[in-house]
Every structure is written in C-alpha cells, then in structure tokens.
C-alpha cells in the first residue's frame, strides 16, 4: 500500500475528536431520557389528577343512584356539600351497550378469525384481512355517523341501545378477528392434524381443538377489544344520546359512563362529578387491560 496515503489516513483518524463524539453521544442519551421521563410523568400527572380530584365523590350512592339534575347539583355546590346522586344510569347503560356489542362482535369476530387462519394463503382471505385492518382504522366518529344512518334512522327510528351497541361492535370486530387469527397461529399444527387424521368432523376440530387450545389468547383479545370501546364517547353521542334514568329497553336511548362525563363537562354545576366518573371509567379500563395482560403472561409462562 502507498505509504503516503496510509500516513494521511492515520492523520485523519487522529483528528476525529474522541471527546466531542462521546460527549455528543452522552448528550443525546440525556435528551432521550428527558423526553421519555416527560412522557411517563404525563401519565402519572393524568392518573394523579383523576385520583386526587375524584376519590372523595366515590361512595355508595355513586354506584346506586342515577345522575342528579343540575338544580340539585347547584344547591349542593352552594351549600358546600358533595353532589348527591351517582352514575347508576351510566354504569348500567355501559354494561348493556358493551354486553350487547360483545354478543354481536365476539361470535362473528372469532368465526371470521378462524376463517382467515384456515385460509391464510388464499387471495380472498388476504383481501378480507386488509379490509378488516382498514375498518380498524376508521375513526370512531365515522362509525357513529354510519350507524346513525343504518340503525337510528332506519331501524329504531330514534337513538337506541341497539344503535350504540352496533357501533361498538363494529369497532370491536377487527380487533377480535386479528387476535383470534394470531392466537390460532400459536396452536401447534400437529394438534390439529392429529384430530383430522382421526377422522374428526371439521366443526369438532374447531370446537374441541382449535378454540380450547387458543382459549387464553381469545380471552385476551376480547378483553382488549372491550377495554378499547369502554371509554368511547363520540360514536355514542351519535347513536344512543344519553338518558337520565336507567333503561333496559334496546330500542330506547341509554346513558353510558363516558356520555355522562361529557354531560357533566358541559354543565358547570356538575364539575365535581366529572372526576369521580372519570376515575371510575379509567380504573375499569385499566383493570381490564391489566387482566388481559395477566392472562396473556400466565399463558406464555406455561
């Protein structure tokens, strides 16, 4: 090798500033750490705000009484008492809406998920999978708009539980399809092949082998889907509107916890109830999240 080039190269290498470079590297790390700390402190701030402002309104009547009217709330505020009443109409409404949505979305989601798993390589299945992915990205307000046109206008002729549930079901469906397909993929194919080799009918292979052996994955997926729609507000505004009393009639409007939060937010007298309702809602959502993670983790250890 030409030694002059070699000399030049060594000189060049010597001029790279070691100190500057490692300083830059450490500086970058500090900035990254700072941003990450900002992110996690926001989480603590939000949760902390809810807990601090919301906990003293959570009592027995919070769960057993319907939301107060604005006059009662105003009187309570004026005399410095806590606002009477609770969010029973919201809790029952949320349970009803999410329950009915699950009844619609879970069977369809699982069956479609199984279809995609069984026909993984087919072009048509690929199209269905892509469309399902697109559905998952449709903004919830647009889902609400569509269900308004389908159910509120054409079927129940007014805001209703059914409309709200259909909206939530449409949002749950792609999540359940995806998680079903993913958890079926985890089932060892030998298990399925063994059953088929024994001449077991196809539906029994599905019911006795595929579903039981991917059960915890299915549950995790369903819980995550439920926790995803539990706090949805926008689509419910367009489909179930709200209700000041408890309602079990599927053709009638119903309230929901997130709808009540929205309602309290728009009523200056109700401010104190906002925080307790939000704390309750968030606690519920996080509980489901943790539960699903726990089931998933327990499964993966086995």
């Amino acid at each position: 090798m030409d030694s002059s080039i070699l000399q030049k190269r060594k000189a060049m290498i010597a001029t790279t500033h070691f100190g500057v470079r490692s300083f830059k590297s450490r500086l970058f790390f500090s900035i990254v750490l700072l941003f990450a700390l900002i992110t996690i402190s926001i989480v603590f701030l939000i949760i902390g705000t809810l807990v601090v402002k919301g906990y003293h309104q959570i009592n027995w009547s919070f769960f057993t009484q319907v939301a107060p009217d604005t006059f009662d709330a105003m009187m309570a505020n004026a005399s410095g008492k806590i606002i009477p009443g609770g969010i029973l109409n919201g809790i029952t409404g949320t349970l009803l809406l999410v329950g009915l949505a699950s009844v619609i979305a879970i069977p369809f989601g699982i069956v479609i998920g199984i279809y995609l798993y069984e026909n993984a390589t087919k072009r048509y299945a690929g199209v269905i999978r892509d469309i399902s992915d697109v559905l998952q990205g449709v903004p919830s307000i647009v889902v609400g708009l569509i269900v308004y046109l389908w159910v509120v206008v054409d079927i129940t002729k007014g805001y209703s539980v059914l409309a709200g549930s259909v909206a939530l079901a449409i949002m749950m469906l792609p999540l359940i399809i995806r998680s079903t397909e993913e958890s079926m993929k985890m089932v060892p194919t030998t298990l399925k092949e063994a059953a088929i080799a024994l001449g077991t009918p196809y539906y029994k292979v599905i019911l006795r082998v595929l579903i039981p052996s991917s059960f915890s994955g299915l549950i995790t997926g369903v819980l995550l889907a439920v926790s995803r729609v539990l706090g949805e507000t926008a689509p419910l505004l367009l489909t179930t509107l709200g209700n000041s009393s408890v309602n079990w009639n599927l053709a009638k409007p119903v309230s929901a916890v997130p709808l009540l939060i929205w309602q309290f937010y728009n009523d200056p007298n109700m401010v104190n109830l906002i925080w307790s309702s939000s704390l309750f809602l968030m606690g519920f959502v996080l509980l489901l999240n943790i539960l699903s993670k726990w089931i998933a983790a327990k499964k993966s250890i086995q």
Partner: protein
Amino acid sequence: MAPAASILSIEDLSIAYDRDKYAVKNVTATVRKNAITAIMGPSGCGKTTLLRAINRMHELYPNISTEGKIKLYGDNIYEMPTIELRRKIGMVFQRPNPFPTMSIYENVIAGYKLNGIHLKRSERDEIVETTLRDVTLWDEVKNALHKKGTFLSGGQQQRLCVARALAFKPEIILLDEPTSALDPVSTAKIEDLLVELKQHYTIILVTHNMSQAARISDNSMFMYLGELIEYEDTKTMFTNPKDPRTEGYLTGKFG
C-alpha cells in the same frame, strides 16, 4: 518470545460477569507483533471474554468487572478512549455480519462513516480497492461494488468483514472463531489470508479447530476454566505440551 517484538501485554487480567464468578482469572501474557496467536480451550473457558477484553468490547455487557491491565505498546488500554482503542484494534466476529443496509463498497469504508470522517471520492475508491485486494475479494466483487454485501456467499461476507476491520489500518486484528460458520474451501481462503496479513498486522485468533491453530498460528494459548494454562510457540505446544490438561485437550479427551 523476545520482548522487543511484543505489541500487547496482558497483566494479571481477571474478568467477572457477575460478582465472584470469574470468566477470566489472573491471565498474564505477552503477544508478539506480526504473528498469529491462537487462543484455544474447551467451550466456556473464557476465550471470547479474553479476546473482547482486548478491545474492550466486553464492556458492552452490564455489571461486568475487570481487574488487571492490558498494555498496547506500553499504554494501558483501560485508560484510553474506547473509540481510539478500537480504531487500533479491529475485530472480526464468528458469524459474518456485514451491514445489510450498506453496499459492499460502503461496508468497506463503514468505519470511516461511523467515525464521522469525510473522505474524498478518490480516497474512498482507493481505500476500497486496496483493502478488497488485501483480502483477495477485489476480483470477485469489483463489478458488484454497489450491491448489498448480504448477497455474497458466507466466505465472501467474512472476507468483507475482515476488509471492514482492515480499512482502518489497525495494529491488531481480533478474530473469534471466524471460520466456524464457513465451509472448508472458504475456511482455507481465510486461513491463507490471515497468514498473508500477518506481515502487516498482529493477529489474535480464537479457534476451536486445533488443526487450524496448528496450521497457521505461531503461538498458542490454552485456557481452561478461565485460566491461562499454557502459552508456547505452537509447534512446542502441539509436540510437547507441559501441562496434562493441555495434553488432554489436544488429544481430544475433553472440549
């Protein structure tokens, strides 16, 4: 081993991954310049740990502790900036690992790019060509310089990785079982290359393959349970091992 020809001296080096669990214990040795030194020993005896300690790559593991010194031309490497040290002591790994997002050309000069050194076009071309010639890869790839390095065969990739380490003109090249993932023909090419390269570089080679050590190395270390049991010129060690454990290893009793 005359001290005048030595380049590296390891002085009472001990390394532990966890407290009190030593992977390398009290190793003292002097490495000769422009020679091939082989490190042998059964699996888990600390060869890789010792090798990585020489360019401080072992410090990438958390909680590792190092005692003792390694001196390069008399300077303690643990007091140098790692950047400077690694420029002087290059490394080739067990499995060929060219950067998949870079072309063959870019892989050769990757060291310059990573260290933020800007070269003129002509300088880059010059470095790429001479280095690829040094590793006998030039004729095979000169028409495909801008293809991804990952398209090459395993043996070619490994020579590319040697080129990447050489482009910086290091003093020492460390190789950790560089041929264990290669076929016999590619292995032979790498061995020839190493013998060729020792004229300009000092080579330290970890190998499991005793005949490889016998073929190409000038000196051999035998390690056992973290200790350096025997360090001789290769011919002596293979014909007349002093320690029974060395003899046991060389005759295939363990490892």
